[in-house]
């Protein structure tokens, strides 16, 4: 597994290395080069996914290693597809950066033997719940990357419209309509996926333990994430202009997503959690 992960890290690192020394957000077409590099990384992750599936004889979605693979793979697949569709190559370097970090973390856990499912996880709800969440997380990761790219692109572009005009909604300060659409679409779709994941999770909890909600630390942080993205959604839908604070807020709440995924196990209340892995 380690070799396959390293083989996936290499193209992402090449993408990063070739882009970072250059002015990061230059206007240019979506290059085949980027897509091939990311596709290569995705193929390696797909191979790991298939191998794990053949070992466990069930979809490998249990434990930190398996979820890191599905998370990274989803980010790459969605970023390439959305990038091609919206002709927006600017998200590729931050996406490659995020995936590299995730895969480096996966490398630490690559010796983990696939765990056996406890009775509670042997449910029809398990696969849709996990898949919805990780597709949502992947879209929100792309959203954070797009926010970063948009923020830097805005910084590099001189303001053409006076601030007063923007405040009154008269001007169109969009620096990159494709990137802005990508931002809105990933936020909306990501929110939809995590909402459905949350709702399916509550239904599953009702069938497994009799209560929709148990205030388990992971559940609580999933709700915190949902509430914060609900705030972001209200802000994004209402405003025609994407300002700096909005984009920064977007990046910050993705850090909350990462905490929900990686950090909950370090909380004092995590000892009693049934979700921590």
């Amino acid at each position: 597994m380690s070799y396959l992960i390293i083989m996936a890290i290499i193209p992402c690192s090449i993408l990063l290395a070739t882009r970072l020394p250059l002015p990061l957000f230059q206007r240019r077409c979506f290059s085949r080069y980027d897509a091939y590099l990311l596709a290569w990384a995705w193929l390696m992750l797909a191979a790991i996914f298939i191998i794990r599936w053949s070992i466990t004889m069930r979809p490998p979605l249990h434990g930190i290693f398996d979820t890191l693979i599905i998370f990274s793979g989803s980010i790459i697949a969605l970023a390439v597809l959305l990038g091609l569709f919206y002709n927006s190559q600017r998200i590729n370097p931050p996406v490659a950066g995020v995936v590299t970090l995730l895969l480096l973390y996966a490398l630490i856990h690559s010796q983990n033997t696939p765990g056996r499912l406890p009775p509670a996880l042997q449910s029809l709800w398990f696969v849709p719940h996990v898949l919805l969440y990780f597709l949502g997380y992947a879209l929100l990761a792309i959203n954070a990357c797009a926010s970063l790219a948009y923020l830097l692109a805005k910084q590099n572009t001189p303001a053409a419209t006076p601030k007063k005009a923007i405040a009154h909604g008269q001007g169109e300060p969009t620096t990159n309509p494709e990137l802005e659409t990508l931002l809105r679409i990933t936020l909306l779709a990501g929110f939809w996926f995590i909402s459905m994941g949350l709702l399916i999770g509550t239904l599953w909890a009702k069938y497994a333990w009799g209560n929709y909600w148990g205030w388990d630390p992971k559940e609580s942080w999933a709700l915190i994430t949902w509430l914060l993205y609900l705030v972001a959604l209200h802000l994004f839908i209402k405003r025609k202009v994407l300002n700096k604070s909005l984009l920064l807020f977007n990046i910050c709440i993705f850090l909350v997503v990462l905490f929900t995924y990686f950090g909950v196990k370090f909380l004092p209340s995590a000892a009693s959690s049934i979700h921590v892995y």
Partner: protein
Amino acid sequence: MPITTTYIAIALLVVTLLVFVFPDLWKRYVRIIDAERFLIVVNIALAAWIVLGTLIIQHLSREQYEAMYGKALTDILLFLEFDTIFHSKIFVFTLTCSGISSLAKFLEALRRPRQLGTLSWAALLSHLGIIVILLGTLVSSLGAFTGFMELQEGQAKRHFLQMTKNNPTLGKVDNFELRELPFVVALEDFQIGYYEEKSRYRLSWYERDAPTGLYRFRKAWGQNALEKGVHLEALSLEVKKERESPPESEQFFISSGSGNNRKSASIVLPHNPTPNSSKEEEHILFNDGLIAVVLEAVEPQIREYRSVVNIVDKNGHEHKKLIMVNHPAVQDGYWLHQFSYRKGDETSTLLQIVYDPGWKIVLAGMVLLALGITASCLFALLQAERKRRREQ
């Protein structure tokens, strides 16, 4: 009536009255609660209370909090009810604010339905979903309860122990009360299925506390089994499982470090330990006696539990039901869940009994919320796409 219910009921009544009976008063003074800013503040406040709820371990005793935070902080914490934050007045108040914000938006929009666009209708559906979920929790808070029933094969029971504070997932129970079901449950058969491998080894690392000389647990490896040649990076240990010992035993070689600093030791344990032999452990002292390594046989991993029960209702009719984890049995509004079993006695099952009169309302609210979110996201996506095409 619980404090939660009182808050929510009064708030919902007041908002409805204000919007429809005293519209002028509503417009002049209290319109703020259907403003977007109010919703944002309430959501962030809710998120903040939930963060606190995960930072502070809930349901501990005063003595335990004092040991952790000191007396002064404990007094504040208990005064603000942060030891049971999800039932505290401040949390319920914030939750109520969220509900009335949704209700205010919903009612306000209903006053002028012709001005609403498709996106607004979709958003209204989401708000309605939140209101219905809160109403469902209100009904649940009035009549829901959770309890447990232990049954042996061949035994029939009507009584069960009800928890006075129901938080089964966190295992925090304040008290039990004996209650009666409107039917009799008889356990016909109880089975526990194990994964194939019935014996496993686990390696645990204990570190010696220098002042007291006691060993404290630090980490464990090998949830499934320790295979030959395991490298444990955190401790720089290498475990080799070899068959140099008698056939009924397993010999483990454990080494750490390299070159002149390399240290090794070996221990022998039964080849096929049973859960009861888990106490047959060996200790090895490493690095001047500062580290001890223990190998132990652990319990086999359970794949499934299943209880076959015969329920005799008040009319004397018999209903045979299978109860498994994720497969509860429902009888007269009571949900019977497979919860656990008595250790060492594989003929005794532990069932969880849940009665929740509000579950269907919550479910209806969740369906509305799902539909509302789906429609809102879809319409907003279409809007964004239209905007992009216009700009192109």
